[in-house]
């Protein structure tokens, strides 16, 4: 291990120090790299100083900015991969995700699922990555922030000649009067300290804390994100609702009741092609451009005492749910998420006498909840014998794929006054099978459709924490960006005054300050050594 560095002024500096913490004398190669060394006031980054135990080694690993950036890169790449296939919450709800990803997307889908990309924000390794990012931010900030704070707090008025000489803005042997300079600097809001005929002016030191404030915000933000996984903090569910249907809102069952939602109507509106304002833009697209997705909803609550489906249902309120305009109640919000237009809902038929082609009656079958018997009057009636909402043939036998009426098929029994015999007919879309010798047939007459809406049910108690983190983050950014830490050292020497100046950013600004000082007091403008070098 390196030894402490003892400066000629007698100060003991920790190993790794670039500039003496007391008098400001630059050590070793700090002279040549004065500007870089000044970033942390030439203090030793602690991580590089002590490297003895395993704890120190872990600490030093996370202290590295390089490591921090790599963690960010890995997180970004993972997040990007997570968008290749849909996330778990957007796949159909009634399928097993394990087999769904494989059957839909093949081997890649299987790997995607196995590695947890299907539920990225919930996968353990992604959480660990975020945690490592938080750790990296905390450790790196402590390692740099604490020594910086200490050395800025301890800074002395009189600095070592070498320190002044190697600053970017420097002037030697200047003739001038300290008293008038002091007044001129005060006018520019500098804080001034004096010692033995030397002067130190400083302003905007707090801007140096900007990055650290910013990091505190970021850590609070990440903590808020982690809190999502804690019980009771976060709910996100999807609810599909047909027009006219009422269903319990998932996640809202509690001791004092259960919320229900009715979908009165789902509305999809498009921009008018002839709209004066958007005419030109709309010409560039052949498809209609949607303007509004809206669910007209009614919110109910039951006093169910924790029993699903029990209790009296009372209306709470009604409202429109539009994209980004959720319906809110208690700590829940309902967001418009998805929709399905024109799902088959009812089919109407006519009973026709085949020979005369005469219609003897009409009836309508509700495809979601069909009735069994349809009385057509005058002794005619139709029974619905069998119903297949999503019909297909398997080994010559009609079956249904599921309970969604995408391709309905029916077996009707037709009853007429003149016959006691029931005539049977199988009716499907574009596929009617009749028994030989039937006198009557069922003819398709029309359809009714309904729209479905999908709403996201969300409760998020982490939002205030995440917002607080965001606000602190922004304060840090502003603090660091819009203010600069400017310092001017004036040291009395035999040949005149030595003037050096430093700013953490915006050299133009500090030069303007010095110009004002020069105008007021008549001193020579310090030379910008960097500008001189490049010129």
């Amino acid at each position: 291990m390196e030894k402490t560095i003892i400066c000629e002024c007698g100060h003991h500096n920790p190993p790794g120090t670039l500039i003496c913490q007391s008098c400001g004398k630059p050590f070793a190669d700090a002279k040549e790299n004065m500007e870089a060394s000044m970033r942390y006031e030439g203090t030793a980054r602690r991580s590089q100083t002590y490297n003895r135990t395993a704890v120190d080694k872990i600490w030093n690993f996370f202290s590295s900015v390089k490591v921090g950036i790599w963690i960010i890169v890995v997180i970004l790449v993972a997040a990007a991969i997570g968008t290749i296939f849909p996330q778990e919450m957007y796949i159909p709800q009634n399928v097993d995700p394990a087999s769904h990803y494989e059957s839909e997307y093949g081997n890649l889908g299987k790997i995607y699922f196995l590695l947890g990309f299907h539920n990225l924000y919930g996968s353990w390794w992604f959480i660990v990555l975020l945690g490592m990012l938080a750790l990296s931010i905390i450790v790196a900030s402590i390692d740099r922030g604490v020594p910086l704070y200490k050395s800025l707090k301890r800074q002395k008025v009189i600095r070592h000649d070498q320190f002044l000489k190697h600053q970017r803005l420097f002037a030697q042997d200047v003739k001038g009067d300290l008293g008038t300079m002091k007044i001129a600097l005060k006018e520019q809001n500098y804080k001034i300290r004096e010692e033995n005929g030397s002067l130190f002016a400083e302003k905007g030191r707090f801007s140096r804390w900007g990055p650290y404030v910013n990091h505190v915000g970021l850590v609070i933000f990440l903590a808020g994100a982690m809190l999502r996984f804690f019980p009771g903090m976060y709910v996100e569910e999807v609810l599909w609702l047909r027009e006219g249907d009422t269903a319990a809102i998932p996640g809202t069952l509690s001791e004092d009741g259960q919320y229900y939602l009715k979908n009165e109507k789902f509305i999809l509106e498009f921009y008018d092609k002839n709209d004066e304002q958007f005419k030109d833009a709309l010409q560039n697209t052949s498809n209609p451009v949607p303007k509004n997705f809206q669910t007209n909803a009614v919110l109910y609550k039951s006093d169910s005492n924790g029993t699903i489906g029990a209790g009296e249902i009372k209306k709470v309120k009604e409202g429109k749910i539009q994209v980004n305009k959720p319906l809110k109640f208690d700590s829940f919000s309902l967001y418009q998420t998805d929709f399905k237009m024109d799902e088959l809902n009812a089919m109407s038929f006519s009973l026709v006498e085949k020979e005369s082609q005469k219609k003897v009656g009409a009836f309508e079958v509700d495809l979601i909840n069909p009735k069994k018997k349809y009385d057509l009057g005058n002794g005619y009636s139709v029974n619905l014998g069998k119903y297949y909402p999503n019909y297909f043939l398997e080994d010559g036998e009609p079956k249904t794929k599921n309970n969604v009426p995408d391709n309905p098929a029916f077996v009707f029994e037709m009853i007429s006054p003149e016959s006691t015999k029931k005539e049977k007919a199988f009716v499907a879309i574009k596929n009617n099978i009749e028994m030989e010798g039937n006198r009557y047939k069922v003819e398709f007459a029309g359809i009714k459709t309904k729209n479905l809406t999908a709403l996201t049910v969300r409760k998020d108690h982490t939002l205030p924490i995440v917002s607080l983190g965001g606000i602190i983050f922004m304060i840090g950014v502003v603090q660091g960006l819009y203010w600069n830490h400017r310092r001017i050292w004036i040291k009395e020497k035999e040949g005149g005054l030595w003037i050096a100046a430093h700013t953490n950013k915006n050299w133009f600004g500090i030069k303007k300050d010095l110009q004002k000082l020069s105008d007021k007091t008549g001193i020579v403008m310090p030379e910008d050594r960097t500008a001189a070098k490049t010129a």
Partner: protein
Amino acid sequence: MKRNGRFWFRSILLALIAAAIGYTVYSSFFIKERTLVNSGDQAPDFVLTDVNGKEVRLSDYRGKGVFLNFWGTWCKPCEREMPYMERQFKVYKEQGVEILAVNVGESNIAVEDFRDKYRLTFSIPLDKNRDVTRAYGIGPIPTTLTIDKNGKVVEKTSRSLSNKDIVQMMEKIKP
């Protein structure tokens, strides 16, 4: 002294963050299960109307074992286990076990037809809006939960059950 302080500060800070990450990962494994009903949980009470028009309330079966099955007429594995359920229902009915075969969102006609085809005699509550299915967090069907006489879930499975499976499950919830 100073060196020691640094060691402890670093160790404690690293341990705290590691604990926070650990707990988050731990609870992320259970976040899904929290919204579901699992074995060991109290089975949420519900009221549904069955295919015969009778109101069925789960809590009315306190004191009895309940074999709670979620199914659909179009689901093959559901269809396979139904005759076994019927057979064992006849055996265990006398021993205080009820079967509630909750149909997930289908029409009366489809369910009646199915009931008649397999001559099912146990109660078939109709969960038209899927409220109960959602509240129980049922994913793929068939899913069966066995509930003991105190209303506690003993077992939950999404397999298609064999006759033997059903006997074993019934034995466990027999009061």
